[in-house]
């Protein structure tokens, strides 16, 4: 039998998946390198960050009972090209183009506030702190679109135990990285930077709340909040802070960026709730990312479908008032 070879491409010529996925970063990096050569050494520190993006590090994960079954993950392409990450531009496609500038090594997360003593964790130590689990979660943006994302990480509670918070700690605040050289887009939007988010202690300790390092079995692409972020699947996406550099345990409800910017639109809790409208749009339905336009509309679930696990956290609370 004659078996034809399909083409003449040697396997050594095939671009690796990681290089392919980072082709824009590579091209921009190459262009920048050219500019650098012309403009002199001062620009070198601008061209350098692409190092951090190049590595699509594989993560060894174990399955988890807390993963949501029966839902199909959104494509890697969509998860990594449709992002709200205003540090890298306000258009959904901006972060994929611009986030290569983010330097994710060296990276530390400092812990302060109501803790036994201040600590600083190196990102590589955090990666090894607990076994990495795959958690497939629904992701619902306050803008009424949704995805399904196979995140990789471990429960934030595991990390909090290492932080040794005092009993006076009632809330946890997460502060994202802020750097005008790597994130010049910050200047385009009037928000109080750095990006700040927060959870009540019991929400933070809930096993579903994930300290996240990767998706689809590889290290987080920069635009998805590398190198470490939180994911709170029953809340609107903006509650899940990206690129975290500081975790602060506090006595009182911390300032949170969007809530501060428009308290009538973005509550501190921001639990996914189809019966409480955003002032400018209904939250009853969501657009499923990646679906064809004529069947993208889907009903939004209370607590994004995680009510069985989390509703008890809010027993007796008026969720209309505490939206």
């Amino acid at each position, binding site marked *: 039998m004659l078996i034809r070879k399909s083409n003449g491409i040697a396997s050594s010529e095939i671009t690796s998946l990681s290089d392919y996925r980072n082709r824009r970063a590579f091209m921009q990096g190459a262009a920048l390198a050219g500019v650098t050569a012309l403009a002199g050494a001062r620009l070198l520190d601008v061209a350098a960050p692409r190092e951090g993006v190049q590595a699509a590090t594989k993560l060894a994960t174990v399955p988890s009972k807390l993963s949501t079954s029966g839902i199909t993950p*959104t494509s890697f*392409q*969509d998860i990594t*090209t*449709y992002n709200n990450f205003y540090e890298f531009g*306000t258009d*959904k*496609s901006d972060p994929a183009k611009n986030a290569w500038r983010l330097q994710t090594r060296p990276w530390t997360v400092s812990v302060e506030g109501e803790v036994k003593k201040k600590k600083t964790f190196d990102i590589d130590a955090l990666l090894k702190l607990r076994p990495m689990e795959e958690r497939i979660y629904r992701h619902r943006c306050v803008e009424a*679109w949704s995805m399904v994302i196979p995140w990789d990480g471990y429960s934030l509670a595991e990390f909090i135990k290492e932080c040794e918070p005092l009993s006076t700690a009632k809330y946890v605040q997460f502060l994202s990285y802020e750097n005008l050289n790597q994130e010049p887009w910050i200047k*385009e*939007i*009037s*928000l109080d930077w750095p990006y700040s988010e927060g959870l009540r202690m019991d929400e933070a300790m809930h096993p579903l709340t994930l300290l996240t390092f990767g998706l689809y079995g590889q290290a987080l692409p920069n635009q998805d909040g590398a190198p470490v972020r939180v994911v709170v699947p029953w809340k609107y996406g903006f509650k899940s802070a990206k690129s975290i550099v500081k975790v602060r345990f506090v006595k009182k409800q911390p300032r949170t960026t*969007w809530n501060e*910017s*428009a308290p009538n*639109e973005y509550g501190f809790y921001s639990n996914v709730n189809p019966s409480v*409208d955003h*002032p*400018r*749009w*209904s939250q*009853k339905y969501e*657009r499923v*990312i*990646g679906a*064809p*336009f*004529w069947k*993208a*509309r889907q009903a939004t679930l209370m607590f994004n479908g995680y009510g069985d696990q989390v509703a008890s956290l809010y027993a007796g609370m008026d969720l209309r008032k505490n939206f």
Partner: protein
Amino acid sequence: MKNRWIRGLKWIVFPACLVPLGLLVADGFTNQLGPDPVAEITHRTGFWALYFLLASLAITPLRRLHSRLAWLIRFRRMLGLFAFFYACLHLLTWVWLFSEFDLHAMAHDFVKRPFITVGIFAWVILLALAATSTQWAVRTLGGKRWQWLHRAVYLAATAAVIHYWWIVKPGVRTPWKVTAVLVVLLLLRLAWKAKETARKSQARVTVPA
């Protein structure tokens, strides 16, 4: 410009105005509308409605630059009607893709969401202007009254820009460019009017009693 040339040019401009729709349909068929096609369709139709509206508002200031640009007026109606056309498609995305023809939900949105109210307000004005865009309408209404009615386009354009500001998140400044263009186009009219008034009063003063 000769009539013949204008008619010829219209055969080019008209299909050119349909290019954004053509691209939208082509991208739809080839699955190129990105991860959130509904948002993409909404944004594109909305932007083009606004661009055509601003283009139609640019005709008069351009015409005043030089007497040899007077023929531009012959394209104003076409641009205005295309603004209405894209505004209709934009409205349809809301009626169909966002509301799935749920009248109750739409009524609720209309009452409760100012950006929807102001958007529909702009569309209703454009509807009235499109309906009275024929020569017959000009004759029936009379030139003065027709012109007075069609000045509502300033209101429609302002409402459209407010509609844009009210849908972006607080702090986001992306609508500033179209806002700047609209402000310039409106200021040019005020400046022209002021100049005209000054010229007329001066003319009155210099005429001996």
